[in-house]
C-alpha cells in the first residue's frame, strides 16, 4: 500500500510520450498542473477544471481522460500521452492533425489539444464511426469558436483515409 501525508512532497514518475519523466508534487496536485508546471509540457491546456470542457484531455495508458479529474499521484508509473507526442508524419503532423489543418478544424486552438487526444483514442477503437457517433464523442469537448462542423469533417475524413490505406495494402 502507498500512503502519503497531505503536505508530503511525492516523487511521481510517468512515461510522458514515450520518455520517462519525473517531478515532485503534493498528493492534491492535479495531473493537468503536474504536466504543465512540473514537467513543462504546456501543450495540454486547462479550461474549466471540473471535467466539463475537455481542454485538458490526455491519454492515460492509451485511454482518453480528463487530466483535471486525475491526481498526479494516481498517474505514477503510468503512460501519459499528450498532444506533444502526436507528431509523426513527414510534415511533423499526424494524419489526424493534417486533416484538422486541411479542414480548418481549429480557430483559436485552445480546445484542440484535448480534442486531438480524444479522437486519437476513439479512432483507434472505432475505425468506422458514423457522423452521429463522432458528434457524441465530441460532445465531451467545448469549442467556444464553435467550429464543430469542420472538426466532425476532419475526424470522418481521417477515419476514411485510414480505412482506404488499409484496403490499398490488401490489393498491392
Amino acid at each position: 500500500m502507498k500512503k502519503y501525508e497531505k503536505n508530503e512532497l511525492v516523487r511521481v514518475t510517468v512515461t510522458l510520450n514515450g520518455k520517462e519523466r519525473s517531478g515532485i508534487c503534493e498528493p492534491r496536485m492535479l495531473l493537468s498542473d503536474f504536466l504543465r508546471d512540473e514537467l513543462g509540457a504546456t501543450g495540454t491546456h486547462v479550461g474549466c477544471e471540473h471535467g466539463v470542457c475537455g481542454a485538458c484531455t490526455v491519454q492515460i495508458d492509451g485511454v482518453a481522460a480528463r487530466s483535471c479529474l486525475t491526481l498526479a499521484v494516481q498517474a505514477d508509473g503510468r503512460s501519459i500521452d499528450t498532444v506533444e507526442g502526436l507528431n509523426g508524419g513527414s510534415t511533423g503532423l499526424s494524419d489526424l492533425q493534417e486533416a484538422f489543418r486541411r479542414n480548418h478544424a481549429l480557430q483559436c486552438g485552445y480546445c484542440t489539444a484535448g480534442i486531438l487526444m480524444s479522437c486519437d483514442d476513439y479512432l483507434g477503437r472505432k475505425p468506422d464511426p458514423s457522423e452521429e457517433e463522432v458528434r457524441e464523442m465530441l460532445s465531451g469537448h467545448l469549442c467556444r469558436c464553435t467550429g464543430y462542423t469542420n472538426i466532425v469533417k476532419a475526424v470522418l475524413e481521417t477515419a476514411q483515409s485510414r480505412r482506404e490505406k488499409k484496403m490499398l495494402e490488401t490489393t498491392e
Partner: protein
Amino acid sequence: MKPQVFDYARPDSAAEAVALLADSGSDARILAGGQSLMAVLNMRLAQPSLLIDISRVQDLNYVRVQDGNLVIGAAATQASVEWRRSLKDEVPLLTQVFPHISHFQIRNRGTVCGSVAHADPSAELPLALLLLGGQVVLRNRKGRRVLAADDFFQGMLMTARAPDELVEEVRYPLVTAGHGYAFNEFSGRHGDFAVASVGAMVNKDSIRFAVGGVSDRPRVKVLPLLKGADLDTAINDFAWELEARDDHHASAQFRRQLVRRLGRAVIERAMS
C-alpha cells in the same frame, strides 16, 4: 479550482481499503474513477481528510456474468462495461443507457459502482439498476451485506451505505426472455445531467416503469399492462407522485410533461 489538502492512500486490495475506511470513517472518501468526486474536490464542495484510491485494486476490477447477473466490481470503469461485445446479449438496457452518460472521455475513467455510490438523482446507472431490480454489495471490515437497489438509494446523494462500508460490487440482472427494455432521457445538451430520464421493462403481465431526475432519487412503479388512455392516466398519476420541484433547469410542470411524453414512448418501445 484546486482541491484542499488531503492524505492519500492507495491500497493494494479490497481488504486494505475497508480496513482504512474502518479506521477513518466519514472523514475518508473512496476515490475510484474520480469523475464525480474530483470535480467536487476541485470546487471544494467536499474536503475529506483522506482519499482512498481503489482505482488500481485488482481484486475490485472485474466484470463477469455470475448467477444470472452482470456483476461489476468497484474498480471497473463504465467503458469496460460499455465496450463489452456481449453486453447487448447480457443487459440490453445498458447498451441504450451508456451513450447518455456524460461523455466518452468521462466513461473511460468513471466507474459503475462510483456512479451508484454517488447516487445523483438524475444519474442513469442508478436508474437502470433500480429498473432491473439489481443489487448493491456493501463491504466493511467485518463482512458483506447485499441490498436491493430500492433499499440502497435513499435520497439526493444519500444511500444506505454506512461510513465504514465500500460499495464493492453492483449486480445488474441479465436479460429475461419475453421482456422488452427501453430507456430515454431529456437534457439541455448531450451528456448533461438529465432533466428527466425514463426507463421501462415490459413483460406479458406488467410494466415496470422508472423515472430519474424528478424526485430526490430514482423511483420505480409497477403498472398493469394498460393501453391507450388508461396507460396515460397511470403515467400521469405516477408523474404527480414524484413531487417534482421547480429549479433553474426546469419547472415541475415541464418535468411531469417529460415523464408523460417520454414515459409513454419508452413503454411503447419496450412493448414492441
